[in-house]
């Protein structure tokens, strides 16, 4: 039995990152190295004994909305399952964010144990915001040949989640498991029989996903666009040329990015042949031709980026969207996803599994959060174009389900759907008439989310016939959803109330970053969606608050934040401020934010504040398409739990689910886990 101190560092023994993986694989003359069939994990245990647990992880499935759908007769399969067993709310983590809650599902631990407390954490040395799910590790040995640097040993991404995944206990007992797309599972964990990495999986060029947009319209202006690149192109005789941006070429000494921020990135040229008369275009890239009508997405297109001629290539996949041919040519390209057939990063276990799926159902989105919310937020794609993308993602995910469900015999089948989360984020305002931006949304898609719930009902309908005494079906979500109409700039509030100080001279900047903060005069700062850190002596590199003062400070901050009122609405933006000791325990506690700000439905931390910025307003209108959210006080956005067997525990929590699954297989609760079985009182 593992102790609570076990650490999962599933990437530690892997081949390192893109550059080396691509180099080594190709140097070995084998794209198929990744496709070598690996033996199934088998530990000589008793096996599943014919027992099955099916978990549908429907991210963000809201219990209130589902109840309304059931009451309206639009979710008959959910209703049937509820009658068969149980349907209710599922307690979640604070913050109620996917990486946090699903990490608790994976490990059975609270964030103080598994160490993931937000999407964004901070480096205590620099205070810079950092990604909380994984981090790259430099190679142990690099062969330097002038400007060429060949990684020979070590390196690659490392998962930062601690604690053993619950399915590894199944593996110990010889029980097979399939784990598809669960968040915080990048690099993909190797303790399941088959697994596909989920939220947190990067694209080839950037951890969060970088779209590309090519336009001939010089009047289109995207001065502060994030999550993508905008390129202004020329058309001559109906022919335009562009370059697709790939990963940074880590094999060569980087050049200065002062004049060209993308100078170190690999690039693949392509040509666009526009046919304005037919409102269509042809794109030629690496010997492939793609023909699109206006408004169409292409199928996946495989693109090879060259790090080093002959020996070093990495493979990515993209979809093109022809937005317009006349009067302007406008082309959107999705982030370059890791090719599941020739993996430049560990996205499936075994690697041959990704190739097998791609061969059977085609290439698929490997980026952890597939829908391009940034492109939608910044107006690169509109509501209709987002919905088309969302439909493609859902169709692909359902094909993946069908592919795997047909092969499932026994053990664990975990299947995750991101659409219920991402589409609720992006299309909430279309549905919610009370949302302040409702009128500015495309009302043709007002019913999209409810239609999506109907699609989920069909998914449940596929699984229901399999349920019997030996087959447990659990449907769960990590949180619910509410409106996000107004944004609270936490760091601006901290600055205005004397908790956060800026360096002299930067006050005039309309927006500051963590680099502009004067740490010698700052006692508290916000990083992440809910995190509020004390600038603590002995922990932060420039900490000034000692332990004695910290207690008084967090009490004051909690009191003041909870007492705030939005002058425009009269509402309290902050519903509850949680002290970390209330909600966390475990060895990771000292590094966690002292306070977790739980917002009132309708409010959320402003995006810029999430990364430590300050601005003008403390509370203002949320301008983004991202209009539904769940980073509120956890009790106000509970998840959903449906079980084919009656739930006996009074207030089930997401942390109870792994214990319950192990219990169903007759495995005792591991010592590291906090929860208890939901099937026992």
């Amino acid at each position: 039995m593992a102790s609570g101190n076990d650490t999962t560092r599933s990437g530690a023994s892997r081949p390192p990152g893109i550059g080396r993986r691509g180099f080594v694989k190709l140097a070995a003359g084998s794209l198929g190295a990744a496709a070598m069939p690996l033996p199934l994990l088998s530990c000589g245990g008793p096996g599943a004994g014919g027992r099955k647990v099916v978990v549908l992880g429907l991210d963000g499935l809201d219990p209130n909305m589902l109840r309304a759908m059931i009451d309206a007769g639009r979710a008959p399969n959910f209703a049937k399952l509820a009658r068969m067993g149980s349907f209710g709310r599922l307690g979640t983590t604070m913050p109620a964010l996917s990486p946090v809650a699903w990490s608790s599902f994976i490990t059975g631990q609270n964030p103080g144990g598994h160490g993931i407390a937000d999407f964004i954490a901070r480096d205590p040395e620099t205070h810079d915001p950092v990604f909380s799910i994984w981090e790259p590790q430099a190679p142990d040995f690099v062969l330097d040949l002038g400007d060429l640097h060949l990684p020979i040993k070590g390196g690659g991404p490392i998962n930062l989640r601690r604690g053993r995944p619950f399915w590894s206990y199944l593996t110990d007992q010889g029980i097979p498991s399939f784990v598809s797309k669960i968040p915080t599972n990048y690099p993909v964990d190797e303790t399941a029989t088959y697994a596909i990495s989920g939220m947190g999986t990067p694209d080839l060029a950037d951890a969060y996903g970088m779209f590309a947009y090519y336009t001939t319209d010089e009047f289109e202006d995207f001065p502060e666009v994030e999550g993508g690149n905008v390129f202004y192109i020329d058309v001559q005789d109906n022919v335009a040329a562009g370059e697709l941006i790939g990963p940074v070429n880590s094999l060569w000494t980087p050049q200065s990015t002062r004049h060209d921020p993308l100078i170190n990135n690999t690039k693949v040229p392509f040509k666009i042949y526009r046919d304005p008369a037919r409102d269509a275009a042809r794109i030629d890239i690496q010997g492939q031709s793609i023909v699109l009508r206006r408004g169409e997405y292409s199928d996946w297109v495989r693109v090879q980026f060259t790090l080093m001629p002959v020996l070093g290539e990495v493979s990515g996949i993209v979809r093109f969207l022809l937005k317009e041919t006349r009067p302007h040519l406008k082309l959107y390209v999705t982030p370059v996803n890791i090719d599941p057939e020739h993996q430049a990063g560990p996205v499936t276990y075994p690697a041959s599994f990704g190739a097998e799926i791609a061969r059977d159902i085609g290439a698929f989105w490997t980026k952890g959060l597939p829908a391009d919310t940034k492109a939608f937020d910044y107006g690169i794609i509109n509501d209709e174009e987002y919905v088309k993308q969302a439909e493609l993602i859902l169709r692909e995910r359902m094909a993946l389900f069908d592919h795997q469900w047909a092969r499932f015999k026994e053990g664990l089948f975990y299947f995750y759907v991101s659409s219920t989360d991402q589409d609720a984020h992006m299309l909430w305002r279309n549905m919610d008439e009370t949302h302040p931006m409702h009128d500015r949304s495309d009302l043709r898609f007002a019913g999209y989310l409810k239609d999506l719930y109907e699609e989920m009902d069909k998914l449940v309908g596929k699984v229901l016939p399999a349920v019997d005494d030996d087959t447990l079906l659990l449907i769960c979500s990590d949180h619910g959803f509410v409106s996000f109409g107004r944004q609270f700039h936490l760091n601006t509030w901290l600055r205005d109330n004397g908790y956060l100080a800026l360096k002299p001279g930067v006050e005039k900047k309309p927006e500051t970053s963590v680099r502009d903060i004067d740490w010698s005069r700052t006692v508290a700062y916000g990083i992440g969606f809910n995190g509020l850190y004390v600038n603590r002596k002995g922990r932060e590199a420039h900490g000034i608050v000692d332990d004695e003062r910290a207690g008084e400070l967090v009490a004051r901050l909690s009191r003041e934040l909870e007492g705030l009122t939005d002058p425009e609405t009269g509402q309290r933006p902050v519903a509850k401020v949680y002290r970390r000791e209330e909600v966390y325990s475990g060895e990771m506690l000292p590094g966690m934010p002292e306070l977790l700000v739980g917002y009132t439905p309708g409010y959320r931390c402003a995006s810029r504040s999430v990364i430590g910025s300050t601005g003008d307003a403390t509370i203002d209108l949320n301008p983004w398409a991202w209009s539904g959210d769940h980073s509120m006080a956890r009790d106000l956005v509970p998840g959903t739990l449906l079980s084919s067997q009656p739930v006996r525990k009074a207030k089930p929590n997401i942390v109870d689910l792994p214990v319950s699954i192990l219990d169903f297989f007759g495995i005792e609760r591991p010592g590291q886990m906090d929860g208890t079985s939901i099937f026992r009182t």
Partner: protein
Amino acid sequence: MARTAVKILNLGLGKLFDLLVWPFRSLDPIWALLAISLLAGVMALWIFGKVSDQERIRRVRDRIRGNVIGIRLFGDDIGLLLRLQGRILWDTLVYMRYALVPTLVLIVPFLLILTQANLRFSVRPLQPGEATVVKARLAEDPAGGGAGEPVLEVPEGLVVETPGVTSAELREMAWRVRAEAPGTYLVTVRAGGERVAKQIVVGGGWGAVSPLRTGESVVDMLLYPGEIPIAADSVVRAIEVSYPDLPVTVFGWRVHWLIILFAGVIVFAFAFRGMLGVEI
């Protein structure tokens, strides 16, 4: 005359290869490739034996072997070592001269084998649901209007999803076509009063799949033997269909079919040289 000969040759070879791969049609393509390698290796060995001066090759190989032994025996005598290495180098060049003519002779059958293998192992048929792009290369700008706008006609089982996209620069028109049902179809490009057909194969694992139907030059006919060439004076110069690559794997490793074919030829040629009494 030459064109007729190439046509007949392509037809005959096509039938021969169809017959050769027929027993392996339900297996992984690697087995058909190995069978072709075996026959090609034995054939190459036999031709090599017939057109080369076997006695001279044997002598020069013996000299090289003797000098290699000399290097092992007299490794401490630098002067002798250099002389022996010089002789080996010279004899190697002599050997290459003796092998030149048979190698040139072998190029012809191997070119024919490669074009037939390329037809079968480079790409795979489309699968139902997959899309492809059909490109028609024309004698003049398709948007020029001289011969009227080219039109693509497809039979049931295929669907044209886009209008034809013209490219004056390439003198091409391109359509996206989606396969709906398995079958071997003929799509037709109608342009300038002419109708030119092109085969599209949907369904099945692997087999003869021709991505390009092109003109009547002898070289084109040799390189693209899968379909009857288009008449030289046609307004349609070529029709191309994009097919996905055929993955050929060896113990799970994806390897280009050309490497497998050549490796197989070498291995089988060495394996049978004793049986056929050929010195290579």
